[in-house]
């Protein structure tokens, strides 16, 4: 187990360096740069700026300096657009917002998805089963950028119940619509996964044994079936996190939340090189570490898995 973790961590480091390098190469290989915007800078000023940021050096020196700053000092440099702000400070300022929305959405999706999926499996082919699975399919098919504005239209612009956008601190009514918008797809996926997993488990021998022992149906379901039936949901956590991250990009955009995703889109549009690289690297690191955690958790939950 320890060896597995160490081996995975050793793969993670070069992976992140590769991601940074690919991103850097994409930004650099593309025609144009941050300064080739609409407002043309006077040549002398541009020259000074280039000197200040080290952009007058050959590319391999720039690459080396950037890599050294990242590896040696965990320093992604300063943003070109938001002058005087370091990339690190932007990330740490916007991260809590994305994390709050993302985690709340994931918890909501887990609770609703597992409940709906279990009910569907236990009452297979009933009205409950068919309606919750149809709803789940709808959840997968309606894009979040359609669902979000429609929710805003109904609950904010027509009923005046909830604020339509903006960040309002952590526990606030502003969070409700973004969290529901983001959670919808995962809810649907988790419900389908739970149903499939539970159906398989409910037919297995150890459930028959548990029933034969005379356990109550609640105990059979909660203590025996759920544990095995939820394995597909656990293994979906990794991909779910990745999708959650991309989902937040759209949701933050719809609801004008100053989170990581919104900054990332702005940075891409502005060609703000250090900020792009910083955010991509940060997201990659988070994802890889979370995937590792999920794999370890999987091994603990399912005694058959060995690394």
């Amino acid at each position, binding site marked *: 187990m320890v060896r597995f973790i160490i081996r995975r961590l050793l*793969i993670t480091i070069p*992976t992140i360096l590769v*991601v940074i390098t*690919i*991103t850097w190469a*994409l*930004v650099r*290989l*593309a*025609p144009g740069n941050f300064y080739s915007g609409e407002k043309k800078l006077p040549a002398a000023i541009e020259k000074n700026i280039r000197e200040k940021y080290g952009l007058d050096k050959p590319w391999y020196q720039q690459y080396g300096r950037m890599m050294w700053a990242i590896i040696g000092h965990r320093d992604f440099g300063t943003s070109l657009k938001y002058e005087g702000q370091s990339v690190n400070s932007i990330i740490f300022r916007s991260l809590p917002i994305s994390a709050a929305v993302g985690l709340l959405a994931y918890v909501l999706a887990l609770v609703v998805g597992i409940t709906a999926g279990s009910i569907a499996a236990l009452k297979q*082919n009933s009205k409950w089963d068919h309606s919750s699975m149809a709803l789940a*399919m*709808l959840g*997968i*098919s*309606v*894009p979040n*950028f*359609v669902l979000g*504005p*429609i929710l*805003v*239209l109904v609950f904010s*612009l027509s009923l005046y119940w909830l604020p339509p956008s903006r960040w309002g601190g952590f526990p606030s009514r502003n969070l409700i619509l973004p969290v529901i918008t983001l959670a919808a797809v995962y809810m649907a*996926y988790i419900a*389908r*996964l739970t149903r*499939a997993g539970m159906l398989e488990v409910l037919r297995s021998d150890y459930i028959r044994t548990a029933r034969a022992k005379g356990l109550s149906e609640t105990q059979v379901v909660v203590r025996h079936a759920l544990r095995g039936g939820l394995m*597909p949901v656990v293994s*979906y956590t*990794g991909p779910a996190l*990745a999708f959650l*991250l*991309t989902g937040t*990009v*759209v949701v933050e*955009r*719809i609801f004008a939340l100053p989170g990581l995703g919104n900054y*990332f*889109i702005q940075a*891409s*549009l502005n*060609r703000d090189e250090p900020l*792009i690289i910083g*955010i*991509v690297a940060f*997201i*990659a690191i988070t*994802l*890889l570490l979370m*995937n590792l955690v999920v794999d370890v958790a999987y091994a603990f939950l399912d005694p058959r898995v060995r690394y």
Partner: protein
Amino acid sequence: MDLESEKRELTEAEDHIESRLNPVDPDMLHVGQEMAVAEGDVDPGPQHEFVRGTSLWQDAWRRLLRNKLAVFGLVVVVLVTIISVAGPTVIKRTLGFTPDYIPSNDPRLVKSFPPFTGPNGEFSWTHPMGTDNAGRDQLARVMQGGQISLFVGIIATLVSLLIGVTYGAVAGYAGGRVDDVMMRFVDVLYSLPYVIVVIVLLSMFRSQTARGQLILLFISLGSVSWLTMARIVRGQVLSLKNQEFVLAARATGVSNTKIVFRHLVPNTLGPVIVYATLTIPQIMLTEAFLSYLGFGVQAPLASWGSLAADGVQNIAIFPWQLIFPGVTMALTLFSLNFLGDGLRDALDPQMRTV
């Protein structure tokens, strides 16, 4: 027995097995029937899988037709495709405008602005879905958007098929070290935030022409969506490559390349088709997501994602500008997903991941 007849016999045996589509797992058909019975909607069908004439394809087709939701999906997908492809031409012929026609100089049409109303503010059959901000007909735009969305979905899926099937089949057939390295590479790519990288790619290399951006979109979407396909094909090939028909092919001196592409790949077709059907809506969704953010399809071309993005601007005043493209897209994805699910149940009842 002379060599010639032995060879013929082997080829026959091979054909025979191949006609069953998937000789991997002798339990498969059996399990499929059991499941079908459990679900209570499909009749197990005749027991003679070895007779030509009731091939797995025909069996699958019959099972698909019994699945109402899948048939609904199939009908909707076909209808949406036909309407999207033929619609703009029909509108051009009958009403005389194209999807990107801006009627700023046409007094007859300019009155139809604001959207969704005729000249005097009532519903107009000239623009059943209203018009967009520039006065372009929304129905024609949605049809054109459908063309582009479906086109992107299909082309990018074909790209991912090409890469994924080749990669997976080679890794599975080669086995050992090569397989290890190739699949580890897939694992690494799998854990990357690829949509993020695609956004960087699309925003950095933003093309000046709408067509260029579209091609960029094909490449980037296709090149990141082959991973699952590679895994599925590899798994299939791994379990197929030790079967007798591969041995037979090798014994008769068939080259490795030919074994992989003539003998192994056709046998993985069932799961591959199922997964490809499920990939199309995923890619369409990703394309819409990218277009919504402004990185995908550029005006004057439209996709459902970019139409939704335009519609969101006016959500408070003209909500149908979002609702028409949004609902059309959701309906299409819904149908594609049901069709994919139905195909999976019909072709490969064992593969039941989401």
